[in-house]
């Protein structure tokens, strides 16, 4: 940065741009969770994605309430500690998913660390660039991803069979609802991340933007994720093993089932981009929560400090393997609990202040 420049330092991005970043990464996360991590619903995975905003409703209401008023420092710090832990675990799971995808498509012999480290470094670097870079990256990705998906869809359209989506309820209503709650664990990172990236309750946010973040974005994410899952579900698998394994799910996601191998090019670009964008979103949310807790640390230091604990968590993911579903189950109560408790704390404080004023 030129010393003559006055634009030095962290520039806060337009809130709209950050909504886009959060929405794109959450859509990818929900799609990935429904397709690979949670396979109980079978061909009704798209219904899980469609229903996840319902499971997010309590957390989203708390988010809508919280962003409408300044949050006192103790509540802010408590929630930031919780969210820092959650986002670091989220970041490590994204990293693991990205590296797993790369390993699955290409580098089966390469140590996973060689694939994890560059993604970790890039995510921390992008996070350290600040709001403009984050928001801009979200918008650029949003401009590219639909075209890649459209290309892959048109390429495979002759191989799609709507009949594969039947029976509609797939693995049963119970499985769908359970999957929707698990997806909501991933989906709740949208309000939680946005609350942190918007300054963790330091200022009041206009109603329009709160509404867009709390209502419109999750619905759009649900529609986009459900649409993608339905399209993927219509593809005929060419995998001969068990239909309910992560490997088969990954095959469906990355290689378009039994379609021509050429389609793998846009699909690989699509999934690598989305998974890495998710890494960036969760890393920057973790870095911002650390920055709120320790304001003296620069954003750059916070970004790298948030990236380091991920390395320790990766072996946990590797050991858990398909049991990531269990970890996913914990996210919903923790995110929802964090948002609701802080909203409750703010409500009590406001009531007490109002009584005193009377």
């Amino acid at each position, binding site marked *: *940065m*030129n010393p*003559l*420049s*006055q*634009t030095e330092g962290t*520039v806060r*991005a*337009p809130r*709209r*741009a950050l909504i886009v970043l959060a929405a794109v990464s959450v859509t990818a996360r929900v799609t990935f969770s429904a397709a690979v991590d949670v396979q109980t619903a079978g061909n009704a995975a798209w219904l899980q994605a469609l229903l996840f905003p319902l499971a997010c409703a309590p957390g989203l209401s708390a988010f809508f309430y919280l962003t409408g008023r300044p949050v006192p420092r103790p509540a802010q710090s408590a929630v930031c500690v919780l969210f820092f832990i959650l986002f670091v675990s989220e970041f490590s799971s994204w990293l693991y998913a*990205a590296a797993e*995808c*790369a390993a699955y*498509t*290409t*580098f089966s012999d390469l140590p996973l660390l060689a*694939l994890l480290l*560059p*993604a970790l470094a*890039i995510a921390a*670097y*992008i996070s350290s*660039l*600040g709001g*403009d*870079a*984050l*928001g*801009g*990256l*979200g*918008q*650029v990705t949003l*401009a590219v991803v639909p075209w890649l998906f459209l290309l892959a869809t048109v390429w495979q359209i002759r191989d799609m069979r709507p009949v594969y989506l039947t029976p509609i309820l797939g693995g049963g209503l119970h499985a769908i609802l359970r999957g929707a709650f698990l997806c909501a664990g991933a989906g709740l990172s949208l309000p939680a991340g946005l609350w942190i990236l918007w300054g963790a309750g330091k200022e009041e946010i206009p109603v329009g933007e709160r509404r867009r973040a709390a209502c419109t974005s999750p619905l759009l994410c649900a529609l986009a994720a459900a649409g993608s899952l339905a399209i993927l579900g219509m593809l005929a698998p060419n995998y001969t093993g068990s239909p309910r394994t992560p490997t088969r799910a990954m095959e469906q996601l990355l290689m378009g089932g039994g379609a021509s*191998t*050429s389609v*793998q*090019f846009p699909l*690989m*670009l699509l999934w*690598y*981009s989305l998974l*890495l*964008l998710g890494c*960036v979103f969760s890393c920057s949310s973790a870095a911002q929560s650390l920055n709120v807790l320790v304001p003296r640390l620069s954003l750059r230091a916070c970004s790298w400090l948030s990236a380091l604990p991920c390395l320790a968590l990766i072996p946990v993911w590797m050991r858990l393997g398909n049991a990531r579903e269990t970890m996913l189950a914990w996210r919903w109560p923790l995110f929802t609990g964090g948002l609701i408790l802080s909203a409750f704390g703010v409500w009590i404080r406001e009531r007490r202040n109002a009584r005193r004023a009377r």
Partner: protein
Amino acid sequence: MAEEMDMRTPVSADLQVNRALLKRIFRLPRNGDCKLCLFRAAGRGALLCYLDGMCDAARIDEDILRPAKLPLAFSENADAASVARDAFALCDCETTGEMRAAVSAVLLGKCAVFIDGCEEAVLADCRKPEKRAVGRTVSENVVIGPQEGFTESLRTNLTLLRRIVRSERLVSETFDVGTELPTAFSLVYLDGRADEAVLSEVRRRMKNVDAPFVPGTGFLQQLIEDHPRALFAQMLQTERPDRASACLAEGRVAILGEGSPYALIAPITLFHLLHAPDDRFLRAQYGTFLRLVRFLGIVISLYLPAVYTAISLYHTHILPTSLFTSIAEARARVPFPVIVEVLIMEISFLLINEAGTRIPSQIGPALGIVGALILGQAAVSASIISPIMIIIVALTGLGNYAIPDYGLGVAVQMLRFGMLLCGAVWGLYGVVLFTMALMASLCGMRSFGETYLSPAAPSSRHMELLLRRPMQERKDEAR
């Protein structure tokens, strides 16, 4: 130190004191350029000081010496201002009581006239510096549109702009930049149209430049742009007055410098570097099509070698069988891995490119023969490279030449190597990683407050990205 003391001295009423001072300042008689002429005007002694070649000798004779020598040119007690008004036949005359100002004016090409008994000097504008005529542009050629370009004369360049932008709101502020050897720069903008915050920021940065000598706009750009370490320029250098005028009409500011045939435009976005000057002179449909072709050129130039390397090293399964077989057959006799093959060809191409820029025009065809025969045919015959690699590098080079801005072309060449290495190490995963880092750093950049990837990020409907809107929809541009 002594020179500084001399410069601070006020103009003396004693002609001999002024003469001695000027002799010291201009190192006379060692310095042959500076002329000091003593003459008598209306019965009083006078001293004329100017730099040979910077002034029009005929105008000095006709407009200063001849009228001043008339017996009743000015009264016996007249001050410098009265002399300038009554005696000289020049409209551009001013007075100064400071020796520093008088010396600066002489260095700019003006004449300084010191009159016995006056504590001020008259600065008369008789400038006629040598300069080349307005010619065709060198680096921004167009098929349809004006052909004239800026010259090295600041005055001529301002005239070229004023001829196109006929508005009383066109303002030109002059700055001397450089702590030891100042160079004249003009900040040009349309008052009321240019953003006041941008203007004050540009003024502040130009005033605070702490460099001894800033000989041109290229130097100034490096000193005042936001991110000097970034690969992409954050100011546009154009040698076309029509392009600079269009930017002024959009509310941007232009900086012109003495000795530089370019205007610096700020603030800009990446898309200004992608747009060619003749886009606006063509119909919207043609302009849009050509922009898309250029964009494709950039994508090919940046990605093709990296994607080829990544696919042929790691993702062969995504190639159709016939293409895979033909690549494998072509590479069967090549002893190097793909990455080495690509690097050999890329470096050879860069060398030919750079040599072609520096080579005298008489031996230019020889370079074409060397490039085509030795690096193309001979390398394939010797099985050092595969024929498909020639196609890859040729397409990459063509894509690079489609980039309208020279600096952007060089940046893309540099980035191509980074992309290539990432593709070679991590395949398409590495290409995506590098792209994300590149995109994020571009999104995080600013040019005088404007985000660099605007209107893509943050998105805006008010500016052009790749598609050119018809002129009827652009009426708001020049209010």
